[in-house]
């Protein structure tokens, strides 16, 4: 069955190409960074837990010592631009992702249905590359040279979401959620519904901003305030408490650099001088939306 394993092989091969190209350009920090990512994608399952931990330490050592800070390689002269058929090639990727997601649901024996979209997306990338090679006739390395230049501009931020997700696992083992929840529960005035609603929603927002991900905040806040206070003590509707609480967390996602994939990566990809330019544009949407979510929770959660 085709699943994440096949996707990881494609990603691993891409990072092997990035590492090789970086090595040829004598950019040793980048070469080592991409080589470790290639190892993770191609051999991560055979490294063992401690082996993977050492691999992470290697990645952090490279990023933490500033070896990824060198300016990206300059672009060579571009070939003459092509026409609107470029859109067709570009839209092949999302079109294949949509068609594959729907089609693979009917073929659960061929493709793991849970991973249908990622498998289809990968397939779309391969189809787009095949069209690109056949039509544009670039040199074999060109897509990887261009892809690597984009990846170089993203740099360490590319890895921050995966690192924060792993940190969440350590937090769970250490029981951080229980402590935060207990503290929050003690801070709320006894019997105050609005106090509990505010503590829960704002707690989701703030904890999401620290962890960069509402998924990390939700188990903490639902355990500390959501279930004991909102659902049990105040007889809240569990569906509203959970769903609207998660969305209050998403408002936090819009306002934090820790959510690197949403906020820092686009700023890097767009070549913006201000790393926080995307966040600055989002705050004015996120804050009123947070107020709406708090009102929804208070107004509909406790009937």
């Amino acid at each position, binding site marked *: 069955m085709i699943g994440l394993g096949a996707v990881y092989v494609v990603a691993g091969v891409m990072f092997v190409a990035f590492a090789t190209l970086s090595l040829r350009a004598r950019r040793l920090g980048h070469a080592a960074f991409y080589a470790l990512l290639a190892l993770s994608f191609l051999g991560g399952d055979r490294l063992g837990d401690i082996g993977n931990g050492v691999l992470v330490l290697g990645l952090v050592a490279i990023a933490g010592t500033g070896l990824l800070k060198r300016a990206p390689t300059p672009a060579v002269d571009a070939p003459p631009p092509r026409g609107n058929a470029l859109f067709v090639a570009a839209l092949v990727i*999302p079109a294949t992702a949509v068609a594959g997601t729907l089609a693979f649901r009917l073929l659960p024996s061929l493709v793991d249905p849970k991973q249908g979209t990622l498998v289809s997306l990968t397939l779309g990338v391969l189809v*787009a590359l095949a069209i690109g090679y056949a039509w544009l006739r670039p040199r074999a390395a060109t897509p990887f040279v261009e892809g690597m230049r984009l990846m170089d501009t993203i740099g360490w931020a590319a890895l921050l979401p995966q690192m924060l*997700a792993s940190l969440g696992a350590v937090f769970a083992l250490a029981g951080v959620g229980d402590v935060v929840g207990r503290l929050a529960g003690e801070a709320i005035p006894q019997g105050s519904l609005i106090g509990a609603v505010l503590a829960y929603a704002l707690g989701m927002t703030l904890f999401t901003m620290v962890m960069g991900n509402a998924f990390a905040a939700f188990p903490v806040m639902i355990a500390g305030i959501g279930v004991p206070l909102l659902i049990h003590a105040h007889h809240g509707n569990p569906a509203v408490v959970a769903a609207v609480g998660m969305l209050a967390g998403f408002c936090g996602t819009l306002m934090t650099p820790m959510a690197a994939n949403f906020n820092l990566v686009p700023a890097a990809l767009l070549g913006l001088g201000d790393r926080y330019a995307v966040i600055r544009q989002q705050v004015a949407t996120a804050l009123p939306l947070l107020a709406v979510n708090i009102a929804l929770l208070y107004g509909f959660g406790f009937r």
Partner: protein
Amino acid sequence: MLVLAGIVVIVAGFLLRFNPLLVVIVSAAVTGLAAGMPPLAILAAFGKAFNADRYVTVIYLVLPAIGLLERYGLQQRARAIVASMRGASAGRLLIVYLLFRQISAALGLISIAGPAQTVRPLLAPMAIAAAEAQAGTAAEGDERIPALAAATDNVGLLFGEDIFIAVGSILLMKGALAGYGIELMPFQLSVWAIPSAVAAFLIHGARLLWLDRRLGRRKALDR
């Protein structure tokens, strides 16, 4: 209480501008040690989770295909197509995209768009071209329009995806509540994402219309 030191490390490390990857690994070490975990166990726990979470990083495999098409002029084509459309405005363009992103995400089609797939090669150049036509000046160096394009993609995704019943966050909520003996159908949760999705469209859409007014005013002032 001591395990909260890891959170302090994250906030302080960020404010002091250390490399965030470094801050994360130090936070993991501090948290684990405070909880009495042996160092090797912390390393193994982090490594195990890192390996299990690789899917978070696979999205970058779209970069070679996008990079190739950009080299042959994809961004220029995106700009040219908007310049040839009469009545195109940056605000209206972004509103249409916001709606498309919310609806497709609500149908579970989350990875079909994104910063690398659509914002950089298509949406941002189109929005810049439209804004330049509206304001009557080159927007060289004005980062607000491309940043707003990326912001629109984020708002559309985050306040659309939870309407889909099989998205990760819905499954996480269902699993977490089941741990307290509260059994919910995914549909019961996803239906409560709809009011916020409507509010997100109205709030962000109003800001985009405001952008059009601002750009139009700039042109009027230049006359």
